[in-house]
């Protein structure tokens, strides 16, 4: 069943904020440059100062308006290297312009020197002031970037919360619908069942093979419909839990016992690696058994008539906790179920938990098993993940339960 038809993609409803991540625009690249960029910018500034110097010389000295072009490299240096860059460029510019200061014979050398000093100080003021503005702007840019990052993070969190809300609302409405449908379907199903039972009795001694076979097929159809209805009821009722502190390994053993017949029938070998001394986990025994049976049966059906079902339990450390010397607060008890079956097509992986999604042939799966399982797992504040095994055939299901506080 394609349940994606006519459904708007969730992504469509989100506000699109461009992710910056580590991307840097040209302003970033030339702001406080390092290495080759710093050398390049310094050379450019020096070239500009020399260029303006030559222009001033060619046009008759500092009395001309071309002199004001010297502010460009000074401001550029201040923008690139801050206040020190601006001051350094101002000093260089003043030095370069020195020989071109117009000599006033009447007022003498001291007046010329004083003019030169005055211009240089003016350059220094522009350099320093531009540097200060540049520093202020850089700080503002950094602050804006930080705010942008926070906004992006908040947006991601909102998006994730929205997705969860949509999913929860979807599941709730499907749950209500499922319960209603299940009830309404069970009544006519009960009539058909009794009708089939009646006909089974009345045709048993007639020797009419066609009728007997037809009735048998009807009985089988009723049984299949009942399985679907049962799935719907499971789906609508998965929200009630009776929690107890239990040993996960024993619940796994009990569940394996219930699928033992299927394993034997399908010539599937079982590999168990259950860790000893696992901490107890809060769980609803029957509901978790339901999840395990579902996962085991999926694996068995994916393997067909041969294969190996592997079940492991272990304690997982939160990544980096050992190195950081943290308390075992993030530790989880994990069950890893692996099969050697066909695996799951990559494009189907993200649909596995959708209600009514199934990869099994029509009539053999309700498409509710994993959906119900995930509901149950999430009610336990645990997580379930399904992926294809790396490098080998088959799928892997991992279920991680939080360990209650041992203090």
């Amino acid at each position, binding site marked *: 069943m394609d349940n994606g038809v006519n459904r708007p993609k969730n992504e469509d409803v989100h506000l699109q904020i461009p992710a910056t991540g580590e991307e840097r625009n040209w302003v970033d690249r030339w702001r406080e440059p390092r290495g080759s960029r710093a050398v390049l910018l310094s050379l450019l500034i020096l070239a500009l100062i020399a260029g303006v110097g030559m222009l001033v010389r060619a046009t008759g000295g500092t009395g001309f308006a071309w002199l004001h072009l010297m502010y460009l490299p000074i401001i550029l240096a201040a923008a690139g290297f801050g206040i020190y860059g601006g001051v350094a460029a101002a000093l260089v510019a003043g030095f370069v312009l020195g020989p071109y200061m117009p000599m006033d014979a009447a007022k003498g050398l001291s007046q010329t020197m004083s003019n030169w000093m005055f211009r240089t100080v003016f350059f220094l003021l522009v350099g320093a002031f531009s540097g200060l503005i540049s520093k202020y702007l850089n700080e503002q840019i950094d602050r804006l970037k930080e705010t942008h990052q926070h906004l992006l993070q908040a947006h991601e969190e909102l998006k994730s919360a929205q997705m969860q809300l949509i999913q929860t609302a979807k599941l709730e409405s499907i749950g209500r619908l499922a319960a209603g449908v*299940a*009830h309404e379907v*069970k*009544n*006519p*199903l*009960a*009539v*058909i*069942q*009794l*009708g089939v*039972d*009646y006909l089974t*009795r*009345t045709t048993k001694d007639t020797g009419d093979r066609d009728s007997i076979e037809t009735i048998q097929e009807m009985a089988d159809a*009723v049984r299949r419909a*009942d399985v679907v209805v*049962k799935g719907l*009821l*499971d789906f609508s009722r998965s929200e009630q839990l009776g929690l107890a502190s239990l040993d996960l390994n024993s619940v796994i053993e009990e569940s394996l016992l219930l699928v033992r017949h299927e394993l034997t029938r399908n010539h599937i070998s079982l590999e168990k690696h259950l860790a000893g001394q696992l901490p107890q986990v809060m769980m609803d025994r029957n509901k978790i058994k339901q999840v395990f049976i579902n996962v085991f049966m999926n694996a068995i059906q994916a393997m067909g008539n041969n294969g190996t079902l592997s079940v492991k339990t272990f304690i997982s450390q939160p990544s980096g906790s050992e190195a950081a010397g943290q308390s075992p607060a993030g530790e989880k008890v994990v069950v890893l179920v692996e099969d050697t079956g066909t695996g799951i097509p990559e494009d189907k992986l993200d649909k596995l938990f959708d209600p009514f999604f199934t990869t099994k042939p029509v009539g053999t799966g309700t498409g509710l098993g994993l959906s119900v399982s995930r509901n149950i797992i999430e009610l336990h504040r645990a997580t379930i993940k399904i992926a294809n095994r790396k490098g080998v055939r088959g799928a892997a299901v991992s279920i991680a339960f939080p360990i209650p506080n041992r203090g």
Partner: protein
Amino acid sequence: MTKKKILVVDDEVGMTRMLKRNLEATGRYDVRTENEGAAAITAAREFQPDLVLLDVMMPEISGDEVAARIKEDKKLSNIPIVFLSAIVKKEETQPTGGNIGGFTFLAKPVKLDDLITCIENHLGK
């Protein structure tokens, strides 16, 4: 051997008809059917059944209310009541009837053999 009297109450006519046909075909039961709660209480007083098979979700008077009224009536209070319901799953009951809150429940769709076993268990008591 006298036939045991069974009152079958379900708002779905097809269901009561099918139950009557199946149970009477065994030759062991005399079955009366009703399709709504009020008529079922009256029928119980007139028919004096040995057992009542009762649907839970019915319009107007629900199955549990019918059961309560039967239990209130001194002449009827000893009659065993078996609920036949679509609101329970087989796993929540025994295949041949599970006890929920003091009453026996059978989950729909029920197999005739399970139903008869359940009825016989009650009538044999």
